């Protein structure tokens, strides 16, 4: 039943370019990249038990690395790979010392990392474009349909990989490390190693998605890929969709972006309404939308 339903949804999603406007495709394309951001975040929080308040540090590293290299004439595919690698390296450099800290300190460090990255971008405005942003000349494709499909395939592939990972034996070990590090160690698991690996995987997908997103948008700017508020949105999306479900994070992200777009005519009120909806869902369904459905499914 579930498989059939998923296949139908997938078919509908894949067929959208044939019957919806370029505008809708554009919104969904961005939403899909956000879906990957949120899933990558959920791997860290939901499974490794680490709250990363700075997903945009990883995303920003990927985005700006790719953008800057492109401005220096490096081919697009290499930029994207380099962006992903930069995110992984930057993520590891950050996580290596931060994971040693207990409690909320890891989260604080990730938060500070975002602020530092933001400052660096502003200070080196000559290279990075500063507040205005970095204009990127190359594109993944000029066709909105192709761009949409690319984002969709990327979302699906990332989703399958991250989901399988979370359900795998390594995923079980990761959950143990997240829930009770001492117990996990006493069972013979190198907790630091597993958490670092999770961080690297999360960084890889965040960086990859960040790099691809800037080529789609044609610009890399602090407001779109680095600002704290972007990170907050990703976190809300993951929690809204359902922690520890991976799939839920993607659904939450698409929901949030699409809702923001539909309510855009409200102007300033838009953010308020979307936040209120998110808050209500979190209050009444603390397990998120997907978590709630799963639980009801179990009971039935």
């Amino acid at each position: 039943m579930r498989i059939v339903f998923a296949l139908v949804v997938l078919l509908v999603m894949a067929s959208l370019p044939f019957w919806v406007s370029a505008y809708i495709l554009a919104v969904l394309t961005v939403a899909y990249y956000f879906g990957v951001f949120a899933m990558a975040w959920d791997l860290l929080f939901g499974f490794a038990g680490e709250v990363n308040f700075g997903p945009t540090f990883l995303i920003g590293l990927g985005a700006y690395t790719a953008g800057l290299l492109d401005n220096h004439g490096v081919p697009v595919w290499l930029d994207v790979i380099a962006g992903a690698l930069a995110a992984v390296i930057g993520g590891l450099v950050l996580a290596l010392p931060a994971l040693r800290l207990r409690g909320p300190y890891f989260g604080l460090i990730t938060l500070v990392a975002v602020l530092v990255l933001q400052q660096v971008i502003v200070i080196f405005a000559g290279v990075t474009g500063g507040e205005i942003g970095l204009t990127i000349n190359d594109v993944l494709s000029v066709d909105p349909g192709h761009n949409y499909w690319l984002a969709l395939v990327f979302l699906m592939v990332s989703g399958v990989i991250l989901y399988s990972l979370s359900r795998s034996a390594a995923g079980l070990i990761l959950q143990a490390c997240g829930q009770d590090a001492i117990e996990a160690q006493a069972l013979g698991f190198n907790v630091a190693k597993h958490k670092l690996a999770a961080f690297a995987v999360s960084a890889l997908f965040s960086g990859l998605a960040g790099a691809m997103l800037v080529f789609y948008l044609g610009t890399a700017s602090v407001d779109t890929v680095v600002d704290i508020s972007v990170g907050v949105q990703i976190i809300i999306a993951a929690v809204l969709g359902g922690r520890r479900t991976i799939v839920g994070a993607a659904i939450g992200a698409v929901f949030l972006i699409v809702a923001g777009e539909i309510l855009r005519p409200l102007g300033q009120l838009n953010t308020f309404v979307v936040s209120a909806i998110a808050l209500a869902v979190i209050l009444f369904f603390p397990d998120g939308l997907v978590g709630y459905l799963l639980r009801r499914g179990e009971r039935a």
Partner: protein
Amino acid sequence: MTTPLLEVAGLTKRFGGLVAVKNLGFAIAAGEILGLIGPNGSGKSTAMKLIMGIERANAGSVRLAGREIVSWPTHRIARAGIGLVFQHSRPLHRQTVLENIKLALLPDSLFHLAAETSVDARARAIGERVGLGAVLDRHPTTLPFADLRRMELAKAIARDPEVVLVDEPFAGLTMAEVESFSALIRSFREEGKAVLLVDHNVKGVAALVDRVLVLYLGERIAEGKAEAVMRDETVRRVYLGGAIETHARAIAPEKSGVALLKVEDLTVFYGKAQALARVALEVHEREFVSVVGLNGAGKSTLFNAISGLVPYSGGINWQGTALAGKTPAAIARGGIAQCPETRELFGDMSVQENLDLGGQRQPPAERADRLAWLYDLFPILKSRSKQLARTLSGGEQQMLAIARALMMNPRLLILDEPTLGLAPVILEQLSKALERLRETTPITVLLGEQNVTFALPHADRVYVLEHARIIWQGPPDRFAAEAGAGYL
């Protein structure tokens, strides 16, 4: 004797000014069980954590089959062949029992994506072996206490270490359960493992071990065959204490017209499972009432219903007025204090702060008196007054939970399994304290226990709770003859 598998020498651990383990040394051969006993806070769990690398030793050496491992990280020590069954169960709550056991079978690899089907089969087999066959697909939170302990043993079996450290496996278990756990631990010996066993169930330990080592204030004070050690004068004084005496009252408390607490027709469901079925019970002013029942019989559910922590149908009346619909806080203010089995201490607050919170509503002078009295009753709490509750030993935490409930100066004190994890000598002290309370204050006590040697001596009346129902009630002297099977 063969060369020892585990050799500990000069092991020392300081926490600030406190020396928790002092120059400890012993050796365990393959196929040998060494018992480690001692009062609460004597350093038994700390010694185990030092061997496991969870706490870092200030000095000393730990050798596994001749190899020095004292500075290794925990996971490496675990892989080298040492397993620890923690004093407090540490299940992964979001995973099923089967997944919890499976986890212990996995290698420490990042790239181990698909567990072989053999892992599943082995996890099931181990689950069956420890008696968890029927609950493999449940989540740990829904398991009764003994099953949680079984799951911890299952994990140790799954890890298949050469050296097994078992911390208080018998605490909170019934006699039948102690028997089946002993059989499992005995099988470790037959498999040629070296076992270090800590427990306050002296009979259970003596029946199982080849040798006993006694710790007191972090130091060894005796070692040898169980019978000889148990006869040792110092060991008797600091650890075993005397037998718990029956404190039958000369005059039974007068039963006034209205019961202080009256429970009628109390029924509680957890989902589909019935935890209490039409339970009726009465407690009169100044009475001591014991509710005796095996694990999972429903004692904690009964107490939690009285404290307003679980929804129920039926009536609970306090001095004639219904408690239904009142918040737990209001019920507590009304004079009912519960010392829950789960302790519910504020882990990041000090001992003193926990006690002060308990005495918050008392007038300052009375509060100071009570505090002095409680510190007199549990001297070790006084010496730990600045320490965070989280870092107390298991027994010290239990003492703190009891002391905090007493600080509230309740009219009705509910004690849920107060003996859990307490050394015999402390049980004796607690028993005397309860007697003194009874003689000198108007307190009323409702005591839940499966340890009848503790529950009976203090009781004016006894209820037996079995499978969610009250099946017997009467005076303690008739208990042995009429309801004692399975408890005595």
